[in-house]
């Protein structure tokens, strides 16, 4: 229970931080913000690595393996395509 409450505290505070940080984003950046934050949500990769590397049993390893593939696509593709978009915005400075 103790652990759960402290996890919940972190969740709620991080949500507030998220609201505060994002609120004033100009429309011009809506798409890169979405794909960039999307890449960050690929953080599940950490959990996928732990599952795939736990070596407990074959089912867990297979689940972990597929999760690693999915999350890596999310992370690598997300950051790269965001970079590609932002490079186009940058050229005009």
């Amino acid at each position: 229970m103790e652990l759960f409450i402290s996890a919940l505290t972190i969740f709620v505070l991080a949500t507030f931080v998220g609201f505060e940080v994002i609120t004033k984003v100009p429309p011009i950046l809506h798409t890169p913000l979405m794909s960039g934050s999307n890449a960050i949500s690929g953080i599940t990769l950490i959990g996928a690595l732990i599952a795939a590397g736990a070596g407990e049993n074959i089912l867990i390893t297979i689940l972990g393996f597929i999760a690693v593939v999915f999350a890596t696509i999310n992370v690598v593709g997300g950051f790269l395509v965001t970079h590609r978009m932002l490079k186009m915005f940058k050229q005009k400075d």
Partner: protein
Amino acid sequence: MNYINTAYLVASALFIIGLRDLSHPRTAMRGNILGATGMLIAVLVTLFAGRIIGYAAILPGIVIGTVIGIIMAQKIPMTAIPQLVALFNGFGGGASVLVAGAAFAEAVVLQAQITKQLAIATAISGLIGAVTFWGSLLAFAKLQGITTEKAVRFPGQSLVNIILGVIILLIGALIVIYPDELWIYWILVALSSILGIMLVLPIGGADMPVIIALLNSYSGLAAAATGFVLSNNILIVSGALVGASGLILTKIMCKAMNRSFANCIFGQQNAAATETKVDDIYTGRVKSSTAEEVAIMLDTARRVVITPGYGMAVAHAQHAVKVLATLLQSRGVEVEFGIHPVAGRMPGHMNVLLAEAEIPYEKLKTMDEINPTFEQTDVVLVIGANDVVNPVARTEPRSPLAGMPILNVDKARSVVVIKRSLSPGFAGIPNPLFAAGNTVMLYGDGRQVVLDLVAAIGEL
């Protein structure tokens, strides 16, 4: 162990700073790189300092995922960004389902004590993750044109969704009561998958920006729920950040369509559309013009505003538009772009396309910036936009568009509408703008018509 958590803390801080930087044009690129750095730190620490026993499943997984990710990110044309983001989103949600399932299975295999919190978090992770995965896949299919882009509705749809939701909640309760029965989790995942599809089915083309933003938020929440399953703070923090940012974008999109949050999410657009006869509005009033005539209008104008819509993306007209804008500017015409918040298929879609065509972002004006300037504008060029410039939003309280903030292009001296036909936009209603006294139509493919205009101006 402690320095793993310290590294996670550093990564979380980098995500927060990265997201902050992503919301300003000048710092956005640095923000993305900071985010990627945070991710790299978190992954490396997990790989080399964590409790990883075998790498046999990890390395091939990373290699396959990286190759696919790189190819997709590099090959995709900018017009297809919405479906790509939807797809990436879906993969994130899918990963959450699998990770939570694996962690749950591990607890069962090790015969560890499964607390209520763990069971609840797993159920939530499975629910949100599966909804995100299948919802995003369907959104991808709709945007890519694999399935119909139209809203699919059938009688009793909401009732079916509510029953489905209740059953999922009951099964979630079963998971908490019988945590050792792993298969119950996968039943929950299967039903949540159906729910994900059901939630996106009634969402049609122009509502896509809302659902993409919402699915973005869900993918964050799924990651956070998985963080609760694993008691892993970095997942909780990052998931909460993304959940919040997706929610803000969803709210902005709903506001731009003057619709409540619930109305947006459940796709209940006012079906009781007004019975306006298309013929009454268009017959004898619509004037069609030629590239030569419009070229003279544009060339003699002092100020031209271009308002693009999804049609510009479909016609891949952004580069031609850039050529036209540059040509007009070189002939002393002031050119700006007016961009409606929900133009296109995802938030900011038009901005990305115009940036790709190397149009300076100072020229891209938001609806609030551009609206007061229309009265001083000589010509507005509407390219592939329809509902977002439909004046009935202001004048007809019973219209499905009523109250939606629009680009007031009809206030300009003249309006040129480039469109393939008079077919209605997503809202399915005729647009009196096309029949207005100061409007002329230029029929044809957006890209070709703009190129014709460029040629015609060149010959003046």
